[in-house]
């Protein structure tokens, strides 16, 4: 699978509420050693939102500092996105390209800030 495929998936909670579409994935480099050199790039969480420019600019995730006008505007839009742990995925539906979450996916709630 490619990330361009993954970015087409929608995420739906256990009670059927659509959270949005995947717009980014958070990677933590703490997996098993690969090639004997570095730790694997484990995907820890999915950023689920509406897509759009705000989620590309990374005012929150990338800690872009300014200018104030853009930080407020795009920061607010970006913060509407939710972060869903990969561990909370219940199952994948490749036909409808939907990811269903477990019932209590809020339990280990993560934020955009790292």
């Amino acid at each position: 699978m490619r990330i361009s495929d993954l970015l087409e998936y929608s995420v739906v909670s256990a009670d059927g509420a659509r959270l949005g579409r995947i717009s980014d994935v958070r990677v933590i480099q703490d997996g098993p050693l690969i090639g004997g050199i570095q730790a694997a790039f484990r995907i820890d969480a999915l950023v689920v939102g509406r897509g759009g420019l705000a989620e590309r600019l990374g005012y929150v995730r990338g800690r872009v500092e300014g200018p104030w006008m853009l930080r407020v505007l795009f920061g607010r839009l970006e913060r509407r996105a939710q972060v869903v742990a990969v561990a909370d995925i219940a199952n994948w539906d490749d036909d409808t390209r939907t990811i269903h979450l477990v019932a209590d996916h809020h339990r280990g709630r993560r934020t955009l800030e790292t």
Partner: protein
Amino acid sequence: MPLGKRRRRLPAGVAGVAGVAGVVFVLTAGALASGCSEHSVGPARTYDDYERKSRTSAEVALSAVETVRLLAETSSDGNAWGAYTSVSISEQEDTLAEVQGDYASIQPPDHRSDDLRAELTDLLSTATDHVAAVRIAVRRGNLDGLEEIAQPLIDDSDALQQFLDSIER
């Protein structure tokens, strides 16, 4: 995999930019291809319309006449060389010829317009003749005497100015 079947919707931004770019492209290409210029003319449906087009044509002609006068003056004072003067005068002669042709092709909508047309057509053709005389002299290398030869253009310029004043009223 059904991936290929469902094409991803373009984000609004892309569609917008692409749309605007397309429109702009067509507009520009069209405008440039049709030779759309300041003195371009279309059909005139009313007297006011015709008057406005007459004014634009007279303004462009006045600019050309005055440019040639200034060039002749500059050249007579020894302030420019032949190639510069000759190319510049030819450009203005072309402009004048273009205005003349364009103006002649506009259909005057009523009898009042006929008078306007008669007056300006006359002015344009005299000015064109006088500019041609300057061009002929410059091509023959008569740079010093240009101001003399351009003398009649003063009257042309005054007449065009008067024409403009009369419709500006």
